[in-house]
């Protein structure tokens, strides 16, 4: 058996401009650690890289501290459109969903698309329908909304009115 390794990211940006409290920074680091531990548990037990990356991403999708799943950014119309993809290096197959509104964990839907092999990328309501028909959990779009994201969108709209969008903070732009 060869070596195993795992790496994750939860987004990049101008961190100094993130309006996070010390508690929120600490909580984000805890969730990064949880993500690593989830993936590592699979790899160290001889599980697949594919399963490891999926569970690692799910932990972050379910965390409010990252821009994916619960806590994701809002679009200009005030709702969430979520994208995800997964790729298996062994088989050179991949699956993805774009613009999904209701799939609780979009990475699970990407995996489903990949494994069924009927398509590589499904978009919009078709992705939602495909996931639901495949037995994945679907939720109201409001499930993904956090107070931080609502405030960030309102701030960006105000910046647009004032013509100051370029001065928006990182958390207002990306979170």
């Amino acid at each position: 058996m060869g070596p195993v390794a795992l790496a994750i990211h939860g987004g990049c940006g101008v961190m100094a401009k993130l309006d996070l409290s010390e508690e929120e920074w600490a909580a984000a680091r805890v969730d990064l650690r949880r993500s690593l531990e989830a993936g590592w548990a699979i790899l160290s037990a001889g599980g697949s890289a594919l399963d490891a990356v999926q569970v690692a991403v799910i932990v972050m999708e379910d965390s409010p501290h990252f821009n994916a799943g619960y806590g994701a950014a809002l679009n200009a119309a005030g709702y969430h459109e979520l994208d995800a993809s997964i790729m298996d290096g062994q088989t050179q197959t991949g699956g993805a969903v774009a613009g999904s509104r209701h799939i609780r964990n979009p990475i699970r839907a990407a995996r489903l698309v990949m494994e069924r092999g009927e398509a590589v990328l499904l978009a919009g309501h078709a992705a939602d329908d495909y996931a639901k028909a495949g037995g994945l959990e679907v939720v109201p779009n409001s499930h993904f909304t956090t107070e931080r994201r609502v405030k960030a969108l309102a701030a960006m709209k105000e910046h647009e009115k004032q013509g100051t969008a370029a001065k928006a903070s990182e958390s207002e732009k990306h979170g």
Partner: protein
Amino acid sequence: TVGAVALDAAGHLAAATSTGGYNNKPEGRVGDSPIIGAGTYARDGVCAVSGTGKGEFFILHAVGHEVASRVAYLGESLEQASSKIIIDEFQPRSIGAGLVAVDAKGNIAAPYNTDGMFRGWVTPEGKFFVGTHD
């Protein structure tokens, strides 16, 4: 955006990425995360890549595939290949970006050209690292 890359004991690589895009994005906008070869890519024997940053540029530069191609065809190390794009090409153009990648030997690269990146990894020796800023 969040993402993960892994090498398993059987020598197989995988990558995954998930995102909400960015605040106030146009309806219907699709970034790089669901585009295989842009924000996500994996190829056994070479590397697995997951990106974060200005997605349109990850699409235009096919970043995930580009990193793998540099490793496979130019023989660059994972660190060289990923830094070539994120640091050498994107940073001078103020294209904020980062990625995590792992190669077939378990080497890990996590370059970014912003002030920081939420990131973490576990080495083949089982050592955990979590970071946010430089």
